[in-house]
């Protein structure tokens, strides 16, 4: 069979809802696309551990200290699951790590921003995890089977995180003026990055990942679902949105495209977000400091006399 024939067969197979395993034949484009997508997801879980980890020391109760540690542990656990399946597509963990710290691969925009206080934990846990869950649930139908298996577990844990974040939000919302101000302050800073999180409008004709059914829904479709689901909940708690302010139209919560300032997202795409350099440097220096540990893990243990 020629490459062209195989490619056509593969296209039909995937187009009809067929699932692909790591050991199956796949077009180079597909392998590269899936790898890049999963690698970015893995990077995002790994980098996403940082902002919340920054708040673990400040947790206001023993229960929250443990639950937030467990949540960050889950994020690291997700990166473990994702890096493992990305490795199986042919790129070593070390190369992925080096590409990340050297800015050759990307991670989600929201993890390029600083956290300031406990209000950030509420917004990240509830709204950013809520946004992530919308996008990840849409990927459960992805054509790449190892990814969907891992996502099944990730989504289950994200559901829990969402509950965790919502409970923390409700604690702040029903608390003192100071606590309410914490949430509002965090929302003011995070709202635009959350809107950006779904990405600009998808170009259906050009998006290879949509064509290969690695992704199954467009960015604007996912953003719309998120707005409908979360905007009323935030308003119900008496908080308000900064620009771009959502408004009701035809039974849906929507944004005016012109209200969205895309410049910060463009900067992040060039790895020039507010925390990008510092966090990558933190990762890079830790990685270097651990060279001796990796060596100890790599070599078979030998009994010294």
């Amino acid at each position, binding site marked *: 069979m020629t490459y062209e024939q195989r490619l056509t067969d593969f296209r039909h197979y995937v187009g009809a809802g067929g699932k692909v395993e790591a*050991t199956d034949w796949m077009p180079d484009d597909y392998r590269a696309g899936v790898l890049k997508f999963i690698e970015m997801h893995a990077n995002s879980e790994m980098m996403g551990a940082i902002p919340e980890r920054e708040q673990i020391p400040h947790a206001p109760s023993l229960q929250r200290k443990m639950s937030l540690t467990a949540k960050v*542990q889950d994020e690291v*656990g997700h990166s*473990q*699951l994702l890096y*493992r399946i990305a*490795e199986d597509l042919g790129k070593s*963990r070390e190369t992925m790590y080096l590409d990340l710290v050297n800015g050759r691969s990307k991670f989600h925009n929201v993890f390029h921003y600083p956290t300031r206080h406990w209000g950030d934990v509420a917004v990240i846990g509830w709204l950013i995890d809520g946004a992530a869950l919308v996008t990840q649930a849409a990927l459960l139908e992805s054509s790449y089977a190892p990814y969907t298996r*891992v996502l099944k577990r990730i989504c289950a844990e994200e559901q829990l995180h969402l509950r965790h974040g919502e409970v923390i939000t409700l604690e702040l919302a029903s608390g003192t003026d100071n606590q309410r101000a914490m949430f509002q302050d965090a929302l003011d800073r995070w709202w635009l990055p959350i809107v950006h999180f779904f990405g600009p409008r998808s170009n259906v004709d050009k998006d290879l990942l949509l064509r290969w059914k690695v992704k199954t829904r467009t960015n604007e479709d996912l953003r719309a679902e998120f707005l409908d689901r979360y905007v009323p909940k935030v308003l119900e708690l008496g908080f308000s949105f900064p620009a771009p302010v959502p408004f009701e139209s035809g039974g849906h919560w929507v944004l005016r495209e012109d209200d969205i300032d895309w410049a910060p997202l463009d900067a992040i795409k060039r790895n020039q977000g507010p925390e990008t350099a510092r966090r990558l440097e933190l990762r890079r220096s830790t990685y270097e400091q651990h060279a001796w540990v990796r060596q100890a*893990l*790599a070599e*078979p*243990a030998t009994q010294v006399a």
Partner: protein
Amino acid sequence: MDVYEVFRRSGHKQPFEHCGTVTAPDSEMAMLMAKECYLRRKEGQYLWVTRRSEIHSWSDEALLEPAADKSYRFAHAYRDVVQKRELARRRAGQLG
């Protein structure tokens, strides 16, 4: 380091199920890491880890399609049991 395949079982009535992989320097550490990566919410009580290179796999969907009718291997091939039982009863009634 090696890739280890991880299997877990949640009770005596369940079979072991594959649940993921870990990268580890030896089987003992693989076990320890797998315990935290795959059992930290008590998703199981028993754990197996085995080096991926020790797994032998087979898959060929085409070979699972038999050339001849092998429906006798399945319960649905015996759905006429009701009818046959009825016939047999009738036959027994004629013996009298």
